[in-house]
């Protein structure tokens, strides 16, 4: 069975409150030297990404692929899927900052597919999505989906 590795690098300078970091997609170099800080992680992002935004990006990418796979197996490959994921972090008493929820919103254009089979495909896609499974180990995953023209 193949084992696929992907690597990212981060550099941090200074303490957490006033220091800052930057990170790079070391495997693909699809993005490089993106800055991050505590203030932009828990407050207003001000154009800077954060670990939680990257989780949201990973989950949306993963969910879209999982649903494309399910729909293709039904014989209805999607014309287009739009997947938005919102990752929620909260300060939980006694446990510190935690990812508490990942909210998945899907809009799908799938020629020839009825609502019931679409709902079933979305359920199977959620069950088969690596990121949904990971996050469900420690937080809620809520999925809403609708068919569009």
């Amino acid at each position: 069975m193949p084992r696929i590795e992907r690597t990212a690098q981060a550099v941090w300078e200074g303490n957490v409150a006033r220091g800052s970091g930057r990170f790079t997609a070391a495997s693909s170099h699809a993005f490089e030297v993106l800055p991050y800080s505590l203030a932009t992680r828990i407050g207003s992002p001000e154009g800077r990404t954060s670990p939680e935004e990257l989780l949201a990006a990973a989950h949306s990418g993963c969910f879209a692929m999982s649903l494309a796979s399910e729909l293709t197996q039904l014989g209805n490959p999607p014309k287009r899927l739009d997947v938005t994921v919102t990752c929620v972090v909260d300060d939980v008493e006694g446990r510190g900052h935690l990812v508490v929820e990942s909210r998945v919103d899907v809009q799908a254009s799938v020629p020839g597919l009825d609502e019931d089979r679409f709902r079933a495909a979305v359920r199977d896609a959620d069950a088969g999505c690596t990121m949904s499974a990971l996050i469900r180990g420690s937080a809620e995953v809520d999925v809403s989906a609708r068919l569009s023209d």
Partner: protein
Amino acid sequence: MAAERHAEVSWSGSLMEGSGRIESTGSGAIGGLEVTWASRSEPDESGRTSPEELIAAAHAACFSMALSHALAQAGTPPERLDVQATSTFVPGTGITQMRLDVTGRVPGMDEAAFRAAAGQAKEDCPVSKALAGNVEISLDARLES
């Protein structure tokens, strides 16, 4: 106070032949990134990112902040931390492992104390907590000599 962060992805076509795009993120810092099944599951990623690379980036960034916090609380804030996170993805099974490698430049701190702080940060960082139970997380920590 809860913080929300979001990302939008579009996908067209089947899993094997189709392709997707991370269209945008709430911060605007990343967007317009292509993703495909090939870029995710083949050894060579050909310049395209994947959910597993994004998780590695999230974990590296999260761990670096947790460790800087622990070091500052111990009275020895870091001059610099270099963190590398590597995820292992087994198609059909999922993300099985994450390897964290950290090198620190921390004036006034010895190796044993640095390793202990790194071990604590590995437990405390929110991304570690999100992965806990599903992913085996390993850590290699050393001070810059």
